[in-house]
């Protein structure tokens, strides 16, 4: 116990902290400028100087550790003088910009000067001049205003790990500049913007469009982009989201955001948003009324159900919609239409992989705390770049590396390249061989723990010596051995599994091998999730074989219980997966498809094929906020409300339930309300008047969400899963081994960039400015072999079709791959991809599409 006396107040400290933190814990205010609680201590601004007895000079409170018996004074005349002096110096060169500067009103320098600063200036000299830098698309730098507190630099380097900016020049001329020159060319996390105490680095998205005091409301809600579920605060003026900021102390992200979260909010106010329901008349979508559209859909669904039976109708739910939307939607499908034909795009990887892993380890195996990654001593990354797919999770991996943890990657992971990862780059389609080698070696080193017999029996079958593995995969044996060594000596390892490994050829076998690795070294598993509510859509029973709460449909007792709760029979027959639906539509056995907040024509492989299949439907209903590729084909389009305009809950990849709150108002209906109205018109009454009502029913019905309430969620996110195994281990682990690798040639790869995720981000101008258009990323070797250079237009063609794109040469791409994103309209990678399903995971295989690349126009 340390006792310090600050301003005559005795403060007892449990653990050693700085004098500043001790004072703040006791409610004593010490002004600071360069101090930021997320950053390393710096002691540069000299504003926090305090008097300490028996120390000859004033000390910086932010760097001075409190020692037992220390007597500190923070408010003396001498200190006030020093503070005044420091601030006077800072203002010598500060421009008279407050009327134009967007920071005025929330500027820390302003507040400090008002509280502690001088009242008149004594310097008559001219101020330094530096033009405002507007070269960057989303960030604006005004170095006249910079006070060189270096908070942005420390944030960029020490927290974000991007190390994109630094202080250049000396003395009065020092200022902050990106290493890349004018443009930042960085990860655009924008955390420097929230670190900057003055208006030196600011976002351009809302430049000059409001003043901080004009913001009417601040709403704490959840980011709509990826599965991490960061808490963000939407600041609103006149029902327009002006800015999105993080807040220190929130779960998961704690004051940090990524580029998507921070700069991707503008789609909410997009002019392209749908406003009225549309009905296709004579092949053209025409504006209609809500009554007409709802009546029409209800009537047509009713007719089709009577004529062909419920199984001729299917529904696609959405990992972008809330749990409430998805719950109501699956209930509508099961109760009103009498079919289990419901699925979502979580089927393209997440759902299958999670079911596979939970089948081995039990439910909740992937629900691990994201901040816990920072405390791991080794992180194995397989199948994707976590810093791009789930950036805030990626930051935790970087934090782990900074603390001395080993980063092990299979394939090149660009986001951690600065952290000296142990990197194995196997040849295309040889991941399984590599993992087999690792498992064999680990098995020998660590022995079998003996707790999960089914898995152990599989592990026993695996045998591939290291030298064989190394040879097959094209890595050196030394690297592989070191890799295994690092993994086997770790005591708290973590395993991060990305979609690339799930969607690889033989995905289920790779997952089995990864599970074996996790089992042998006792690693926590994190499954990367691309969509905000991918976990929730599965938990809500939007799957052909699951009821809400992940109860399998096939167990009669469970089904009976839901039937009793819903007062309606639930069909016994398992429904169709999303890919079955497309097949059935093609075959003509599916007559109607109801799509809620999803864009299958763009987000499923073989886009052309999907489009052709959907053309054969008698009724296609789409609920969306934009006119998507799918909506264009629809018979009826309902405009829904976006994420910021409604309440509900998201379940993140940790299975943390978090509350979405309404930030702006807009006319229209939430997805669930539209479904409830349609159901009502079909004679199935669902008595919900708010999202909270639905959640109340969910907590009554679903064992996973039992006894939860919005009130509890209001405080902070909570976990629905209470460790209760809901789905037993089935005893057998089905796997499909991959066929032998196809040698040579180029294969299509899906690029998952940091700045985009699907159809929302392409309507966010800020993100589009950062990453403007689709490119074909190839390795330098591939480029050299075909004498291509950066910017050349090429035609990338597969069996299905072709795309014409500019080339980007990227050293991070493997030689046999052409990486294309699936974000830009008409240029999606999935439009080239053949649809091949992994028989076990029922997820598409993404890396088997052979492509050719040639100069366009030849």
């Amino acid at each position, binding site marked *: 116990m340390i006792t310090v006396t600050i301003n005559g107040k005795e403060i007892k400290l449990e653990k050693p902290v700085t004098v500043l933190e001790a004072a703040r814990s006791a409610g004593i205010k010490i002004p600071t400028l360069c101090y930021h609680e997320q950053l390393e201590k710096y002691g540069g601004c000299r504003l926090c100087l305090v008097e300490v007895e028996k120390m000859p000079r004033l000390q910086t409170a932010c760097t001075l550790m409190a020692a037992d018996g220390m007597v500190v004074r923070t408010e003396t005349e001498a200190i006030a003088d020093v503070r005044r002096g420091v601030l006077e110096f800072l203002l010598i060169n500060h421009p008279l910009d407050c009327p134009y500067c967007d920071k005025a*009103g929330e500027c820390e320098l302003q507040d400090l000067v008002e509280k502690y600063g001088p009242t008149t200036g004594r310097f008559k000299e001219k101020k330094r001049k530096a033009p405002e830098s507007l070269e960057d698309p989303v960030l604006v730098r005004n170095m006249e205003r910079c006070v060189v507190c270096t908070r942005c630099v420390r944030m960029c380097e020490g927290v974000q790990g991007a190390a994109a900016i630094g202080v250049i020049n000396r003395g009065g001329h020092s200022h902050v500049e990106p290493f890349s020159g004018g443009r930042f060319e960085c990860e655009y996390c924008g955390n420097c913007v929230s670190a900057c105490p003055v208006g030196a680095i600011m976002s351009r998205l809302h430049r000059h469009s409001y*003043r901080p005091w*004009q913001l009417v409301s601040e709403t704490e809600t959840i980011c709509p982009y990826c599965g991490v579920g960061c808490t963000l605060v939407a600041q609103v003026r006149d029902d327009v989201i002006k800015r999105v900021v993080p807040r220190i102390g929130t779960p998961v992200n704690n004051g940090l955001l990524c580029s998507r979260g921070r700069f991707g909010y503008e789609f909410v106010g997009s002019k392209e948003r749908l406003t009225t329901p549309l009905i296709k008349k004579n092949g053209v979508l025409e504006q209609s009324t809500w009554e007409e559209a709802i009546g029409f859909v209800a009537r047509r669904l009713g007719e089709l159900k009577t004529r062909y039976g419920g199984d001729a109708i299917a529904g696609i739910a959405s990992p972008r919609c809330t749990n409430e939307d998805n719950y109501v939607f699956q209930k509508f499908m099961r109760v009103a239409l009498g079919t289990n034909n419901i699925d979502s795009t979580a089927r393209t990887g997440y759902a299958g992989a999670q079911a596979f892993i939970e089948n081995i380890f039990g439910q909740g195996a992937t629900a691990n705390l994201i901040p816990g990654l920072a405390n791991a001593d080794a992180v194995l990354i397989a199948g994707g770049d976590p810093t791009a797919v789930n950036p805030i999770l990626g930051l935790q991996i970087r934090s782990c590396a900074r603390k001395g943890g080993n980063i092990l990657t299979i394939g090149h992971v660009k986001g951690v390249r600065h952290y000296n990862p142990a990197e194995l780059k196997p040849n295309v389609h040889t991941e399984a061989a590599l993992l087999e080698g690792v498992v064999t070696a680990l098995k020998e080193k660590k022995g079998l723990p003996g707790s999960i017999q089914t898995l152990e029996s599989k592990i026993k079958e695996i045998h591939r010596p290291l030298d064989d593995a190394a040879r097959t995969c094209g890595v050196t044996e030394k690297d592989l051995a070191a890799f295994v060594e690092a993994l086997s000596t770790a005591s708290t390892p973590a395993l991060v599994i990305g979609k690339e490994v799930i969607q690889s050829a033989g995905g289920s076998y790779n997952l089995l091998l990864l599970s074996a690795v996790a089992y042998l070294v006792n690693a926590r598993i994190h499954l990367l999730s691309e969509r905000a509510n991918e976990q929730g859509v599965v938990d809500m029973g939007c799957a052909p074989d699951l009821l809400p709460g992940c109860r399998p449909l096939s167990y009669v007792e469970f089904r009976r219980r839901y039937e009793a709760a819903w007062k309606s029979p639930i069909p016994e027959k398992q429904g169709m997966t999303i890919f079955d639906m497309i097949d059935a539509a093609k075959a003509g056995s599916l007559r109607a498809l109801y799509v809620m907040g999803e864009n299958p024509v763009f987000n499923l492989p073989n886009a052309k094929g999907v489009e052709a299949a959907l053309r054969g439907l008698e009724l296609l209903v789409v609920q969306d906020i934009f006119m998507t590729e799918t909506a264009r084909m629809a018979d009826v389009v309902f405009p829904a409300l976006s994420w910021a305009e409604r309440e509900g809950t998201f379940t993140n990849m940790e299975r943390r339930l978090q509350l979405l709150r309404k930030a702006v108002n807009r006319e229209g209906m939430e997805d669930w309300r539209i479904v409830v109205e349609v159901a009502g018109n079909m004679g199935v009454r669902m008595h919900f008047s708010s999202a909270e009502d639905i959640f109340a029913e969910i907590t009554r019905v679903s064992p996973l969400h039992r006894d939860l309430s919005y009130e509890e969620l209001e405080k902070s996110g909570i976990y629905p899963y209470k460790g209760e195994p809901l789905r037993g281990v089935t005893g057998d682990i089905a796997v499909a081994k991959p066929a032998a690798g196809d040698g040579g040639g180029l294969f299509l790869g899906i690029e998952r960039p940091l700045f985009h995720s699907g159809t929302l981000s392409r309507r966010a101008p800020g993100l589009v400015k950062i990453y403007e258009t689709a490119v074909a990323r190839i390795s330098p070797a591939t480029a050299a072999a075909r004498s291509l250079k950066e910017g050349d237009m090429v035609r990338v063609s597969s069996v299905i079709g072709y795309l014409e794109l500019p080339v980007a040469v990227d050293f991070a791409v493997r030689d046999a791959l052409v990486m294309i994103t699936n974000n830009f309209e008409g240029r999606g990678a999935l439009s080239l991809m053949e649809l091949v399903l992994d028989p076990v995971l029922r997820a598409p295989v993404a890396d088997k599409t052979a492509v050719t690349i040639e100069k366009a126009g030849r």
Partner: protein
Amino acid sequence: MTSGKILKTVFFVEILKGLALTFRTLFKHPVTRRYPKVKVPAKAGFRGLHALARNAEGRMKCVGCGLCGAYCPSKCIHIYTSEGDDHAKIVDRYEIDVLRCIFCGFCVEACPFGAITLSEHYEYSETSRGAFYMTREKLLENWDKYFAGPKGERYFKEFWLPQSNTYSSYEGQAMFRGRAKGKE
């Protein structure tokens, strides 16, 4: 009761005194004025209808810093700004809801540029609410109407406060110097 009091009571003395005063008033000039036929000009510095000042080049002085709206006790000033073509801040809309305004003149005190003013114009009754929603254009028009010429300059000299001489003593302050001439 004394006899004096009785007499006073019997002869309605106090009532007659009062009536005498009323009667005398009959011969005084009326103090009322026949508005609107006879108008009383507002005193200089009257806090009437708003106007947005123009600078010497005839452009609006306002840069959209928003201080007037922040200080406004009735929150009736709405400013919308955006980034212009040359990346400078431009004022798209400057609107005052006159029906909410309480004419305290705090906006004038808040403005660092001397862009918002209160004119001496007070007769602006209208029959619709919309007419009281002052847009940027209407406010600039008011400037041309009510502050034309040197009047505008004088306004800022005298009524744009506080000025640095407000804080220091200076010569020529209003002081009591006996009754004004001609009234003694």
